[in-house]
């Protein structure tokens, strides 16, 4: 019975599903958004400077309050307009995947995305472009228009309806001429849709996506990716990478809304952008394996379990758990898979509840995922000490959930080792 489930997990569920996530457009969206993460991480750190985690009457806090507009300018030009960078990245990745010129595709994607917005004249400044839609809120529009632009480019290239240069012309010059026809088509098309027909891209897409965004911030919307990601990892496939291909655009929208609210000093609207999973569920890596690695390192009777625990402890503190997942192994191991799925589910429920009841601040900063859990939790919530407490409680809960299964595993290893000695 167990064996049948394991076989199904490996052959019928995870491998085919993961292959789906390798679909060309999903891959381009994933790579394009992943490429913007450094910009988001660095940009969001200026929010910590603007709202330092110190009492409001200290000199640093007073200085920050006085200069907040200037301090947040780097954030405004990085994370605040992240969809602009994502459009470039998606356009680049998608055109590369078709073996077309990456830079041409990237530029065309940016043109298409920018042309969903209407510039205005501001008194005394000149032409300005409202920035709000270039942020996370515009992510879905950026995805759609980037794909649209590159697909048009591909169709036009394929139909040979392009200006071809004689062979003597240098390749770089020829390339920019080749891009003339698709650029003309994209610009004219976007002009018609946005400026002539007055189609409200951002309003329309926001309305269409609203149910999905709202659901993803509910407890149910958290548990679905948690269970999927742990199921993928149970078969040894990078669950966050696969599920993230689909979910990360939504998580980015949630994060952006929280960051924007924090910059304005109002209550954060969402609980579950990606840092929520990272710091309050995936402690020690997917599966909340910090619980298991601590038990193995310090409570093992068998030699193998202890030495694996000691090896995997240091990377585990920095949320790297492949040594444990493949070393124990957890992969296709019916005993360890149970807590590997159960622990994150329980942590999700506990942490979600704590934040819904306002016991702990909500995350709005994207901290590098390799920070140790309690530090990451502190940074992600903009410096709330209660986040550290919650993180440590979560680690403790994970240990309790893993304990009985760890005992079975350890005893089994011990029996194997005794057998080997007597042989």
């Amino acid at each position, binding site marked *: 019975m167990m064996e049948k489930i394991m076989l199904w997990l490996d052959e019928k569920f995870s491998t085919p599903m993961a292959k789906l996530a390798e679909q060309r457009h999903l891959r381009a969206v994933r790579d394009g958004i992943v490429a913007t993460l450094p910009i988001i991480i660095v940009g969001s750190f200026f929010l910590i400077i603007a709202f330092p985690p110190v009492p409001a009457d200290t000199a640093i806090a007073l200085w920050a309050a006085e200069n907040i507009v200037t301090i947040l300018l780097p954030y405004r030009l990085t994370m605040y307009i992240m969809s602009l960078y994502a459009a470039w990245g998606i356009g680049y990745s998608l055109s590369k995947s078709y073996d077309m010129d990456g830079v041409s595709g990237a530029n065309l994607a940016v043109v298409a995305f920018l042309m969903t917005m209407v510039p205005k004249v501001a008194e005394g400044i000149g032409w300005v472009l409202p920035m709000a839609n270039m942020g996370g809120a515009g992510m879905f529009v950026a995805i759609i228009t980037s794909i649209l632009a590159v697909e048009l480019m591909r169709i036009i290239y394929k139909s040979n309806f392009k200006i071809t240069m004689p062979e003597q012309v240098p390749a770089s010059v020829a390339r920019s001429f080749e891009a003339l026809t698709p650029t003309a088509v994209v610009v004219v098309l976007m002009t018609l849709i946005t400026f002539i027909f007055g189609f409200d891209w951002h309003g329309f897409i926001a309305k269409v996506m609203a149910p999905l965004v709202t659901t993803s911030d509910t407890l149910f919307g958290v548990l679905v990716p948690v269970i999927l990601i742990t199921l993928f990892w149970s078969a040894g496939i990078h669950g966050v990478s696969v599920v993230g291909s689909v979910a990360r655009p939504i998580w980015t929208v949630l994060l952006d809304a929280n960051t924007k609210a924090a910059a304005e000093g109002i209550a954060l609207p969402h609980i579950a952008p990606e840092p929520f999973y990272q710091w309050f569920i995936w402690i020690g890596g997917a599966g909340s394996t910090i619980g298991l690695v601590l038990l193995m390192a310090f409570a093992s009777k068998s030699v193998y379990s202890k030495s*694996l625990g000691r090896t995997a402890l240091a990377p585990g503190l920095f949320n790297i758990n492949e040594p444990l997942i493949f070393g124990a192994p957890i992969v296709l191991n019916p005993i360890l898979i149970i807590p590997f799925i159960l622990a994150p589910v329980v942590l999700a429920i506990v942490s979600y509840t704590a934040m819904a009841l306002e016991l702990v601040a909500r995350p709005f900063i994207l901290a590098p995922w390799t920070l140790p859990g309690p530090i990451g939790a502190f940074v992600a919530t903009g410096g709330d000490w209660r986040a550290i407490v919650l993180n440590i409680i979560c680690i403790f809960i994970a240990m309790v959930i893993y304990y009985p299964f760890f005992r079975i595993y350890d005893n089994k290893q011990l029996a194997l080792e005794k057998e080997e000695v007597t042989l």
Partner: protein
Amino acid sequence: MKIMFVCAGGMSTTMTAKKLEEVSKKNGVEMTVNAFGTSGYLRQLETEHYDVLLVAPQIRHRFDVIKDSCAKFEGLIVEKIPPNMYAPMEPMVKKLFDYIMEKVK
């Protein structure tokens, strides 16, 4: 022999890579093993010669894409690391070592 590991970020694989260098030395084979992420391995292949490229099991669903992208590097052997040989523990890495030696034969 120069070997490249490719995983999602290039971080988790580093430990197994180091262990493989140790094990290969013990077995009288000189192996240099470096780990890279999916976003950086192609650039590395263009600047440096490698004999073998091994895809980590957690991204095995991307194997076909990675293999296709390596077609232009002549003589490069592209394989998957079997899941039961992928952890920085001596017995597992020894199996991986034997597996590689079998593939390059």
